[in-house]
């Protein structure tokens, strides 16, 4: 390995280079170590604005208002009052700050505006969602009330039906009892009829026997 220690400032002297096989990655690793040993710079602009885009017009710094008389002055005062929350930002845009800081502030401002916009949209969505839920809840409640009324009506109907069925059961029971009693009575009467038939048969035979005796 043909290594050369370079003359010059002490930082450069420490860089070791293999001139037979130059390795940029290895050289840059050493350069980065030397550079890192020096005091840090403020962060530089990450990337400039998008290529081929003409620079956007910068907002003008508002001049102090000395309102002229009349309707124009009234309008100007109103606009001034509306714009007042943004004055610090507008003034910052006009200050002779370093471009890196201005770029950082612009990025933060853009991010803030984006966040504000997202929060606003989130709130709008939330309000819309609540309103929709309320509307749906009112609809559901109406339908629920109607269903409850129908269920109550059905329950009353059911109670009536239960009482009716109980009456039917009682009637049925009584009918069975009466039928049973009638059956027993019927059987008893049937037995009496059978006895009376036998007695009639016996009287008939006795009559025939008495007739035979009388005629003979």
């Amino acid at each position, binding site marked *: 390995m043909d290594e*050369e220690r*370079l*003359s*010059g*400032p002490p*930082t*450069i002297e420490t*860089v070791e*280079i293999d*001139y037979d096989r*130059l*390795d*940029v*990655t290895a*050289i*840059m690793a050493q*350069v*980065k170590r*030397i*550079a*890192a040993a*020096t005091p840090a*710079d403020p962060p*530089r*602009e*990450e*990337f*400039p*604005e*998008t*290529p*081929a*885009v*003409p*620079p*956007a*017009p910068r907002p003008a710094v508002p001049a102090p208002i000395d309102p002229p008389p009349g309707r124009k002055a009234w309008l100007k005062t109103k606009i001034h009052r509306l714009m007042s929350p943004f004055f610090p930002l507008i003034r910052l845009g006009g200050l002779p700050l370093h471009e890196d800081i201005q770029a950082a502030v612009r990025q933060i401002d*853009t991010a803030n505006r*984006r966040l504000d*916009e997202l929060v606003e949209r989130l709130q709008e969505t939330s309000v819309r969602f609540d309103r929709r839920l309320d509307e749906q809840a009112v609809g559901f409640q109406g339908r629920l009330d109607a269903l409850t009324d129908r269920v109550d009506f059905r329950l009353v109907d059911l109670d009536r039906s239960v009482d009716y069925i109980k009456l039917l059961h009682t009637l049925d029971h009584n009918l069975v009892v009466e039928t049973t009693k009638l059956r027993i009575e019927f059987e008893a009467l049937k037995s009496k009829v059978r006895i009376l038939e036998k007695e009639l048969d016996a009287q008939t035979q006795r009559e025939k026997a008495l007739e035979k005796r009388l005629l003979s």
Partner: protein
Amino acid sequence: MKVAFVVQRYGLEINGGAELHCRWVAEHMSRHWDVEVLTTRAHDYVTWADQYPEGEESINGVRVRRFSVPKPRDPQRFGRLQNFILEREHTEKDELTWLDEEGPTSPALLKFVQTHSAEYDYFIFFSYRYWHSYWGIRSVPEKAILVPTAERDPVIELKFFKDLFRLPRAFVYNSEEERTMIQTISGNADIPGLVVGVGSEVPADASPERFRRTHGFDKPYVLYLGRIDRNKGFPQLFDDFLRFKAETDSDLALVLIGHSILPIPDHPAILPLGFRPEQDKFDALAGAEALIMPSFYESLSMVTLEAWALGRPVLANARCEVLQGQCRRSNGGLYYGDYPEFRESLKLLLASDRLRRGLGENGRRYYEANYTWPIIEGKYLEVVRRLGGEA
């Protein structure tokens, strides 16, 4: 075999990005296929306003059909729309509106693709993010090959691109990182795709002396080539370079070649030369201590390949995954993620001529192994062969 290259702009005056990439590939592939280019009349990539004459012309032997863009882009409106879709909740319809605004919206070009699709074996679409690719691929998915030229910028995360990446028959990627990114986003690993990239037209007679003589300075310098704007890592590079100068007392200069849309610091060590002819550019590159690539967004970086083709080392922004990956694979450059790393890497490069030569030589070998034109042409032929077409 008849192949149409479909691209947002095309012309000799357009000297960078996916458009130059497309022109070079089209011109080289015209040796193998019957090649046509379908494009717009736009020259300006910001508005896409009609500038070239409508109809057909021949550029370096390739037939070019141009179509009008009836509705040019309004940059302000497009910027607002893009900010909206990148920062806010949005729908797919919003994304399609953004695409219409981005353009180049050329219904005539789309209609031509739809009505003449039977005349072509394949359509090779360049740059996924533009109107012509989105609707063109949807019109002829069975014949579409996409060269995404994608960078890790936020628009690639848009929902409708996920579906788009599942439509073409094949992909031609610029780098391993680009392929990984697109496959992760869209889950399209089952679609054939080769990492190809692009070659370069590097002159054999690049002369550092001529550049120094022309511009009259003899200090050592690092070079930046390309457009000077925020997405390319400016003005951070100015800050880093001037801080490096102040801390190290170095006499290093920073030479800038390319159009600037940012103010350039008035400092004697920073030399903005504006747009220069190709010869001047390569002369400057050949004499640079290193090429600096501070860009955040690159899908390949042709100038990095050109630096390696000339044996020059590269110092790249580590936050661009493609540049960092290329430096690691080639062992042809160092990279930095913050100022301390920039300072130490640059000090290391400047302190050792042997290291610069070694990195440059590795870069040249990497270029010759992967990015010379015979290799690039062979990979395009391989893509078509895999689809079952005769190469």
